[in-house]
């Protein structure tokens, strides 16, 4: 999915999770795009202009941390919210070490999702627009 504007690029292989996140973020006034795999995310046209990436850790063709590493190589300040359904201390530590801006364990509710994305926005240097 792409749109004319993109604030948040959602990367998750679960279509229902993607559409739930799209619904919440769109309602909050944030244009979203989405991808379902590492390959989709790395080829997505909005990867170069999105302001935050909301990315699942476990994707069918690899790890969300690969998406993080590749996109950060192009855009070092791009904030990443890493989501995971397997939030053990070791998993969370690995994501934090890789440079995740926010770690958001699944399942989350609307407020937790919005709070994580807002915090990610506010962490980006020199950004004036906030959701």
């Amino acid at each position: 999915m792409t749109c004319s504007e993109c604030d948040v690029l959602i990367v998750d292989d679960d279509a229902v999770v993607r559409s739930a996140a799209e619904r919440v973020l769109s309602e909050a006034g944030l244009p979203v795009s989405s991808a379902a795999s590492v390959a989709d995310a790395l080829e997505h046209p909005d990867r170069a202009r999105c302001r935050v990436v909301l990315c699942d850790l476990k994707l069918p063709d690899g790890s969300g941390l690969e998406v993080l590493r590749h996109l950060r190589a192009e855009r070092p300040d791009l904030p990443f919210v890493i989501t995971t359904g397997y939030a053990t201390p070791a998993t969370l530590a690995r994501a934090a070490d890789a440079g995740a801006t926010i770690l958001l364990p699944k399942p989350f509710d609307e407020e937790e999702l919005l709070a994580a994305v807002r915090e990610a926005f506010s962490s980006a240097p020199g950004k004036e627009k906030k959701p």
Partner: protein
Amino acid sequence: VDALLSATRRVADGDLATSLPATGAHEIGDLGRAFNDMVARLSDAQRQLTQADKLASVGRLAAGLAHEINNPLTAVLTYASFRLKRCEDPALAQDLEVIVRETKRCRDIVRGLLDVARQTPSRRQPGDVNEVVQRSLSVLRNHLALGQVEVAVDLAHDLPAVPMDANQIQQVVVNLLLNAADAVAETHGGVRVRTRRTEEPAPAVEIDVEDAGHGIPAEARAHLFEPFFTTKGARGTGLGLSITWGIVQAHGGTVRVASEPGQGSRFTVSLPLVPKVPS
């Protein structure tokens, strides 16, 4: 000597319920007592190994479950909370509240299972067990006050620092205090928490959490640390003591239970000063 020989054979065949009448003051009496002590330790070691095996299986189950179930739970929780916030129909809002609340309960159960499976303390540093006990009591202050539970605190002043993950040990003490508070809810008995240093069988710091509740029947005692075993009916998930056991085991320690029906229960957590587990 014949009895000792026969008992040794029974133990060798795997019968760890074997014991000898250890009477008398001479060498044979001493030998009988030493034999019984050895069998008791073997039995305890076997119980711990069986429990570790069960927890490893639960760990594998939890990992798969967490991966598979947390995505559908995310969709349910996100949509339900989204709708609830915008709902103007009070009856529908009430239904949505139930969905949100119950989905969060599922979330807590899955997280509890992952906690059960956690084998390694994440941050183990020398720490003060008394401080952990005080912090646990402070976390539960309101809960204990609401239930009118009196807690007697008896902390040893000469405790050495214990290598531990203080947050995890706090979780252990909180779990035990919550159980103790539940146990005295009807009897209105008291709860006591105590710390002490021990030297036998190895240098350790022990925490006792004792309640004057109904006690635990013998048949329940055998299953207390199994995941999903609960004596609290729908009020408990049956994960608290499994989590407790997993955390203490990961610290190289043990949890002992002494309980008599009608007399209350005592849970003793023993944390070794030199753990035989990787840091």
